């Protein structure tokens, strides 16, 4: 399952699934270097930061907002 770290609150990383539902993942289960906005790949109990997906999404959204702020 792929999720995006939306935010950190207390002991949890609140992650957004593809359907925009938010799930709580204990902070201790994810790599310490993971940041808000990072894409995670979750396989059973293994959680890795998906750097390729993270970069791809950052690029996509940056393109989307070009000239949107005034």
């Amino acid at each position, binding site marked *: 399952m792929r999720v*995006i770290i*939306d*935010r*950190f*609150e*207390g*002991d*949890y990383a*609140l992650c*957004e699934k*593809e359907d*925009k*539902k*938010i*799930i*709580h993942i204990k902070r201790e289960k994810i790599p310490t270097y993971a940041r*808000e*906005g*990072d*894409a995670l790949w979750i396989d059973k109990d293994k959680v890795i930061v998906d750097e390729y997906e*993270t970069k791809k*999404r*950052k690029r*996509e*959204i*940056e393109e*989307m*907002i070009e000239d*949107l*702020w*005034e």
Partner: protein
Amino acid sequence: MRKLNKKALKTYFFIFVMLLSFFVFLTACSKNKTVETMSNVRNDLEVHFMDVGQADAIFIKKGQNTMLIDAGNNEDADWVVNYLKNQGIKKIDYVIGTHPHEDHIGGLDAVINSFDIGKVYMPKVTHTSKTFKDVIHAVKNKGLKISNPVVGSKIALGDAKGVILAPNSDKYKDYNNYSIVLKLTYGNTSFLFTGDAEGLSEKEMIDKGLNLSADVLKVGHHGSNSSTTLSFLNKVNPEYAVIMTGTDNDYGHPHKETMDKLKNKGIIVYRTDQNGTIVAISDGEHIKFNTNPGNYRIGRKSNTYVDEYGKGMIKGNINSKGERIYHMPDGAYYNKVKAEIWFKTEKEAKEAGFRKSKK
């Protein structure tokens, strides 16, 4: 005697005339008064701290002018849109998404899609979430632009005056400090809306020498100890504090540190976890609330139910009708029910699509 009578008559007549004129004066007054209160209602500043649980959504009305600061979680979208529709509005002049977290901008796309929108303010930072993308989509579909929240820029909501006080930097390590902070003043009353701004942003505002004093403080970050530093609270020096938080949330909001500071300063606290939706009304001199204040109780984390091996004890069962129901260890059917799945917290169970057993 006759003289007295005459005198008495005169006195009676005088009293009668006085009473009559007083009565006429009263009716005139009461007529005036109704006109006055009606125009007052039209002139009052209304601030609705909408009960979206562990999230923010604030609707502000001044005469014909309206503003929305944040729109709750994704799952609050319909509720927020309906709340606004029930206010009888078609247009929102200003929409502020304080920062890109889902508990603040979740319902924003639905709001933008459902109403005429004047201006949109969001800090210039992006998120990789679908939630954020959907908000950007909604803005673009309407052919709108996003206004950069430059500190010091003014927003007029009718004759209420808004001024942006944060963010004061353009790069932060986490999203909370990007929060747009807005002070809104009507007559001699003022409100400070802080989103999730944390101690760092609070310090920047203080160091800049910005005028932070306000009668009502929307407490930063749901009452978390990450915000509401004592120096900031002293500068704001509010009479009232409003905390927007969900009952028994997983993070223990509002935290003890925050509640202690508010209590020690004798600040009257209103909180959505205890009061539901809170409406503050200002006539320019006084602020009235639609509910009694809450108390200084700190947030309780929702309980974890595990056995000595760390295995969850809440039973999840799918019944013959296909209903997903979870049973707490003290539930009536707990011992009879076959567990198809175990949960550690009610939150986990709900996130898996289970509802609590009625008994």
